[in-house]
């Protein structure tokens, strides 16, 4: 072979520009929208955290440095909300995931009428979240809902009353609604992952003598693991930001017992119109979620390196 010097010839400038800019042209509208409505407000929101922004007070707007954060350090309501957030998120994710996985496994087997059943059990996912909240609030209401009466019948309660107004039990209301509403999300995602597992793997394993439990442990779980990791991570972040159900069902009450950080931010912004303080809380929440995500990613990395 003769080796000639490679002389790169270049296509005309106009064509090169057109070729190079094509993907940017396709994605520009989406990016511009995201930048204008999410990124700019995000930056502005971060700056609010250091300013005194009260919607009804025309004299507000000054720079207050770390004042909001100092106030936050003294704010017992905030720390209560932080604890409630942990509880709310942990319980919701745990039950959504567990029941979602079971449902996905049940639906992964072919049976007569599966299409219909799938549509029905996934239906709660389509119910608007505010309506899911109202719906469950009504179910817990002893005046029109059956649940308190059933609790009495089961001996769990002495007389029918609304758990949403019971400081010790109130959090369970939004959690139950959230689980009902969120099971389909996990089930859909996990079902999709399950159906992507090659069937002949199971057949090979059965021929090799693996029972159902071994097949689940040695094939299903390893295949699902990446999906589980990513959906649980994303869902955890999402649920800790998800205030709709609480705003609708309890509005943080009774006695702030169901106030989570996200709903607390909303209360500060919407009810008290104190945007500066709301932004400061939001910034802290964002930082906490970032730390959480980082930890998970790091944990995964170390596990992968070991494995």
């Amino acid at each position, binding site marked *: *072979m*003769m*080796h*000639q010097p*490679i*002389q*790169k*010839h270049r*296509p*005309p400038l106009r*064509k090169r520009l057109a070729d190079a800019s094509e993907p940017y042209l396709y994605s520009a509208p989406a990016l511009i929208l995201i930048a204008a409505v999410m990124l700019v407000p995000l930056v502005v929101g971060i700056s609010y955290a250091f300013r005194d922004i009260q919607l009804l007070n025309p004299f507000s707007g000054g720079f207050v440095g770390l004042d909001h954060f100092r106030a936050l350090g003294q704010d017992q309501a905030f720390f209560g909300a932080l604890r409630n957030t942990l509880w709310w998120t942990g319980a919701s994710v745990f039950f959504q995931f567990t029941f979602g996985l079971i449902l996905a496994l049940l639906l992964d087997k072919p049976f007569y009428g599966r299409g219909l059943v799938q549509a029905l059990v996934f239906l709660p996912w389509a119910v608007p979240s505010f309506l899911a909240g109202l719906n469950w609030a009504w179910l817990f209401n002893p005046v029109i809902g059956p649940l308190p009466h059933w609790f009495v019948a089961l001996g769990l309660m002495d007389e029918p009353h609304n758990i949403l107004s019971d400081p010790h039990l109130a959090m369970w209301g939004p959690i139950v609604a959230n689980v009902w509403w969120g099971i389909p999300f996990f089930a859909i995602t996990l079902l999709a992952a399950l159906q992507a597992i090659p069937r002949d793997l199971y057949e090979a394993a059965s021929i090799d003598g693996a029972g159902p439990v071994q097949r689940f442990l040695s094939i299903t779980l390893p295949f699902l693991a990446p999906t589980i990791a990513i959906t649980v991570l994303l869902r955890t972040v999402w649920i800790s930001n998800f205030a709709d159900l609480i705003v609708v069902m309890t509005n943080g009450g009774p006695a702030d017992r169901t106030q989570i950080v996200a709903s607390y931010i909303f209360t500060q912004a919407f009810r008290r119109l104190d945007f500066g303080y709301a932004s400061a809380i939001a910034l802290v929440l964002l930082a906490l979620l970032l730390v959480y995500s980082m930890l998970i990613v790091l944990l995964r990395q170390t596990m992968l390196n070991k494995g």
Partner: protein
Amino acid sequence: MASIDIESVRKSYGPFPVLHGVDLTIRDGEFIVLVGPSGCGKSTLLRMIAGLEEVTSGDIRISGNRVNDLAPKDRDIAMVFQSYALYPHMSVADNMSYSLRLRKTAKEKIASAVGGAAAKLGLEPLLERRPKALSGGQRQRVAMGRAIVRKPKAFLFDEPLSNLDARLREQMRAEIKKLHADLKATSIYVTHDQIEAMTLADRIVAMHGGVVQQVGSPLELYDTPANLFVAGFIGSPGMNFLEGRYVVPGEGKGAGIRLSDGTVVPVASRTGIGPDATVTLGIRPEHVVISDTGMLEASVDLVEPTGFGIILHLSLHGLPFKIFTLDREALSAGPTVRVDFPQKYLHVFDDKGDRVG
């Protein structure tokens, strides 16, 4: 119809070179087959001709016009894909007429072009079907039909038959050959199957590792392979190779090649190699002669009847060696056979793998 010139064409994906400078001239109406093992850059070359990949350096000309910067749609070529790439949401007729519709050809012209192509390929009863409702062979035909309706300057084929079963492949091979005889369109056909290459090509371009190894008619490549790669790649079962040293002619003896056990296989004398140079001796399985007086003895490992003939798998000096014969007696070969190598069928390659003499 058009000629295609490829001039020192190189291709790299980022820092990774895939084609190391290809020069090739394809004459008007010629059927060229690019053949080589998978990953050697055949598709890349074909796709550069089609305009689907940028050329890193060098020029491609169609009918003498440089097309490097032309979009595929402006090159007036047709391509048949390995996956057929039929549009699933269009009927067979619509698939075939799509290119003409894009060119705003008159309705009557489209109808006659599609009708003509469908008649040639036996697709008439299928015109209203969707690709999903066709068998593999029928899809293949539609892909061919889509290419021929618009009488392009050149046809490009990227392994068009590799998704068919053996019998269909044979049949389509013959049909492609007939179509080409009929249309006389310049065609470039990519395959890794050397039988397709042998049967279809006017000229074969054998490629390996992004480098063209040899260009020539099928029989040229078969009879005088330019190097070890082509020798081994063309032909099935593949050519046998034996290591040895060249013995120069003298003292009443002719030239020969001394094998590891000392046997000297006589060969026609060659120029261009010195005495005792390391060489590789090649002989095709069908050229080996079994004879009781043969000069080499080999042990029989396996007897493989193919119906058409018999393949004997042997060990010669501990190395695998094959014989192909039509003689049924080979079925009852004993534990060892003696073989002879007729001189005129011997190939000699130097230590760089290039053909000598």
